[in-house]
């Protein structure tokens, strides 16, 4: 299929663009295979380059022969195009509709994108499992890297290499995999250096209604316990949801078969409910009524903040078990690809200072989300405005980012990155020129040969100028475990995403610049003073006479 067939009118003159906080621009609208472009053809006016993939929904309106297309983007921005000529407008609208909902992976923009910047370090090679394992090896000898999944046959959503207890052989792993949802047998997620405790994650056990058991699965997870110590299983579902799962062949670990484990149920909602929550939240933010009661009741009814609180609470619990109780933890929900990953990755943000650096956070996203098989493509194919019936869409990763933002806001000096980094990741999960978030698992990405055919987001992020832009000026490395408050009054609406296009952030940006300025000036002075100190010290050694006046 050629894109040209889909574009009936590639160019319209005299189109007026209206968008938040920027002056209206009049210019020429062009449609290409992947972009909607508006150019005023004047040097100093900003152009609009919008990826079709970023378009969530459009609306058309006509007044006489003047058509208007309202474009609602996945990053929650809403822009308006006034197009003279009814036919042009209809053509443009129908092209956008088709181009923004192309299903074929082979037509996706990352496969066509050629970087305009020099790739210093190939992001596809930045966070390989074998490198991550080297760090682990330096801390403990109790774990090994298994290639039991090297052809993705044991678990289609796992990477080829996973870390498992040293004493457990691949055969046991295969059998345990058969007992876990999607073949997701328990694997290492995090090793807590301070006390040697670990966090593992998996899919639900397939106990079914008649209480099947699997000796190999029991052996596998018991191998992570110290003698005489109990571990915790955190099931991200409520007891009743977990019970219901039995009827569909799933279930949870019974006390009888897992006597060394204490099971705790939390209540993180499933993806369809989260998607609905996002839609309601965005609608609340767009409410024009200016009534405080209405805003607060819509905010409450969206339940978004409830989800944030629930996820953070579960993550704190996992972190507490490991750090405070000195116990190992296994986390799972149903599939083990959504709420499970929210909990394991946030617990690591709390426990491990390395995850709060720019590189470390990328490694965390790579390890706990991309390699761990979060189905990004399914979850992020639609956002809050889409009219089409949701299939597997859900803001699971966005909720994770929101939770990170909450912790970042509570501990503004403990993160090397600013919220810009989180917003950037949010944008790129929904529409991107980079291949990083394409596909639903390592296996899919490898089949598409993305590491050869596309550029990695990390290649872009890790250039010095981008690192600089994403850095948090207040950062001071600390090696502490940070315990966020999950009290409702401590959790705020993430303005940087949800109000980003609603209220001007000019004054807040100015404050940020001022902060950067204060800190930079301080550093400059330190350098100057240090130089002078050194010179002075030299003078003193050269002229010892001066020391005894």
């Amino acid at each position, binding site marked *: 299929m050629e894109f040209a067939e889909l574009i009936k009118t590639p160019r319209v003159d005299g189109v007026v663009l209206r968008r938040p906080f920027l002056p209206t621009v009049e210019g020429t609208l062009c449609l290409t295979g992947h972009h909607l472009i508006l150019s005023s053809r004047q040097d100093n006016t900003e152009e609009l380059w919008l990826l079709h993939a970023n378009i969530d929904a459009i609306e058309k309106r006509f007044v006489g022969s003047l058509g208007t297309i309202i474009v609602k983007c996945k990053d929650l921005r809403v822009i308006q195009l006034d197009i003279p000529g009814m036919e042009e407008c209809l053509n443009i609208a129908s092209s956008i509709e088709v181009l923004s909902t192309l299903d074929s992976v082979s037509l996706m923009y990352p496969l066509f994108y050629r970087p305009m910047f020099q790739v210093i370090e190939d992001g596809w090679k930045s966070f390989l499992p074998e490198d991550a394992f080297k760090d682990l090896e330096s801390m403990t000898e109790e774990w090994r890297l298994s290639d039991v999944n090297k052809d993705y046959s044991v678990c289609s959503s796992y990477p080829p290499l996973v870390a498992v207890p040293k004493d457990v052989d691949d055969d046991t792993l295969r059998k345990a995999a058969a007992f876990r949802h999607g073949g997701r047998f328990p694997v290492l997620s995090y090793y807590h250096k301070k006390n040697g405790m670990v966090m593992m994650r998996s899919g639900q056990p397939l106990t079914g209604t008649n209480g099947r058991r699997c000796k190999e699965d029991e052996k596998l997870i018991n191998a992570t316990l110290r003698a005489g110590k109990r571990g915790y299983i955190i099931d991200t579902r409520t007891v009743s949801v977990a019970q219901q799962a039995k009827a569909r062949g799933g279930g949870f670990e019974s006390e009888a078969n897992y006597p060394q484990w204490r099971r705790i149920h939390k209540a993180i909602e499933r993806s369809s409910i989260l998607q609905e929550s996002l839609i309601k939240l965005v609608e609340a*933010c767009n409410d024009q009524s*200016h*009534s*405080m*009661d*209405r*805003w*607060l*009741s819509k*905010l*409450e009814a969206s*339940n978004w*903040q*409830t989800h944030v*609180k629930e996820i953070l609470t579960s993550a704190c619990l996992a972190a507490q078990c490991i750090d405070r109780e000195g116990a190992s933890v296994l986390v799972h929900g149903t599939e083990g690809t959504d709420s499970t990953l929210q909990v394991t990755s946030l617990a690591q943000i709390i426990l491990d200072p390395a995850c709060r650096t720019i590189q470390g956070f990328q490694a965390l996203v790579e390890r706990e989300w991309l390699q761990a098989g979060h189905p990004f493509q399914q979850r992020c194919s639609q956002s809050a405005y889409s009219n089409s019936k949701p299939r597997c869409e859900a803001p699971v990763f966005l909720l994770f980012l929101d939770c990170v933002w909450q912790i970042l806001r*509570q*501990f*503004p*000096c*403990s993160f090397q990155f600013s919220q810009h980094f989180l917003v950037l990741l949010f944008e790129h999960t929904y529409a991107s020129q980079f291949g990083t978030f394409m596909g639903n698992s390592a296996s899919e990405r490898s089949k598409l040969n993305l590491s050869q055919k596309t550029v990695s987001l990390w290649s872009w992020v890790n250039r010095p100028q981008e690192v600089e832009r994403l850095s948090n000026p*207040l950062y*001071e490395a*600390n090696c502490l475990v*940070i*315990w966020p*408050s999950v*009290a*409702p*009054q*401590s*959790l*705020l*609406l993430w303005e940087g995403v949800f*109000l980003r296009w*609603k*209220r*001007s952030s000019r*004054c*807040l940006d*100015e*404050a940020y610049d*001022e*902060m950067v300025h*204060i*800190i930079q*000036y*301080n550093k400059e*002075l*330190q350098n*100057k*003073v*240090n130089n*002078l*100190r050194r*010179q*002075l010290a030299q*003078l*003193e050694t050269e002229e010892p006479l*001066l020391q005894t*006046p």
Partner: protein
Amino acid sequence: MEHIRTPKVENVRLIDRTAPRKAMVGTLYLSATHTIFVENNPETRRETWVLHSMVASVERPPTTPSGSHLVVHTKNFQVVQLLIPQERDAMDVQASLARLSQKYSELYCLSINPNANKEEREESWSFLDLQADYRRMGVPNNLWVSTPANSEYRVCDTYPSELFVPKSATPPVIVGSSKFRSRGRLPVLTYFHQDTLAAICRCSQPLSGFSARSQEDEQMLEAIMKSNPGSDYIYVVDTRPKLNAMANRAAGKGYENEDHYANIKLQFIGIENIHVMRNSQQKISWLVNLKTPSMGDFLWGLESSGWLKHIKAVLDAGVFIAKAVAEEGISVVVHCSDGWDRTAQACSVASVLLEPYYRTMKGLMLLIERDWVSFGHKFSHRYNHLEGDPKEVSPVIDQFLECVWQLSEQFPCAFEFNERFLVQLHRHVYSCQYGNFLGNSQKERRDMGLRERTHSLWPQLWKDRAQYANPLYRADHTQTQGMLRPNTTPYCFKMWKGMYNRMEKSSPPRQTPTDLLTAVREETQQLEEELTNHQEVAPGGTAQPGTKQGIQTRSRNAPNERCSLRPIYKFINISL
């Protein structure tokens, strides 16, 4: 001292509500002014002080086997929970505190430093000069003049003795207008905008009923309009909901009839009355004291309290007035019922929006001194300084301070002071530690002789200004210039955690950018000094012994130990 039945109780536990198991054991003392808890642990000996006048209530839940609990709620939303071994002692402490917190004779401001030097005290009262602030605004001038009408508080005993009125307002007009206004609170100037020559005037409601009118009062409003050359109308802002204003007509009060007053545009804003506000704040403070509320409970409670809606209404009133004055160049007359609560809020918020000076520490002090203290805001009644009518109590100035805080969240570089300054102001409005906020009017304060018997808060705050400074403030920043135009869409308002939820503990201790930046700026200043020292020395290459010494001491603070300079993690005794 006859109120203190038990001056000292041993083996008391101070319970941390967030971590009940981590109680501190110590001794409780009752002094004439404070309840003091001293921890037994000889290493830390943490002290917790609660000023008697800050005590809002003392609850004693049923006695448990381990002893009697006392829950002390302070007027600034803090909670101290004590466990006293003997029920008898607990009852005594409760009874003593109930008396002590209400006793005028023991008010802290009257007992603090009674022997301090007289000049010092007098100087403290001359720290702020209201007349100088009017001069800064350009008043008096050829449009607005000072009138002696209220000397000895003859026309209005709740107004200041010095008033500014339109030049064309004759004494009969002033007196006549005053007679037609509730409690004699006639329209007078509170703020003059030099660029547009528009003014903000304030008064109480007219005694119009259904048909009454006063020629003098109509002339007064006409004179106000004429004092703004080039404008052909004024706004009369009635800050009440229209329904309330109409209800007042039955009582012979009400609002201006647009048929009788030529050239006015009447505008209702809809700020609720003191009773609604009191209930609303009670709900907020109940909300933050919930043990483990769900997000739904919290948001529902926030909505049903109505608190943020009220804050928005006050801010909207200020925005309306500020826009009229600065953008349209139209003068505004503001009133509510008596003109000392909502009117004070609306006028002072408008001033903060209009005038960069009122966003500085000294400016805010002057603004409070003018719109609240001098114009007879009833501090003693509203903040329950003495046992009074509970129906008179209402968090009116709390709402003004919160509006300023909400603004500072939207304009982080625009204010010279930080959140702590506002919290401290709030505390002192309630504490009676200084004489500023005692009594209900200038006349009452004069009659009580407070200037002779107490100290003023302002120089004390000024002395400690380093800890109240906003590190992001720069006098030449764009946000500092001109008028503030806040966004008052509902989602721009947040619950003021720093006020209502201050006690929350955090591990590691909460990091605040404000403290950090303040520390960085302090260090920068030290570095600048050192740099100047070095540069004086460096060119000649000969260091003088004195300078060298200075450098050696400082160089212990090597840059990679920057933390060591920062006082943020240091937690000393909590004083409530």
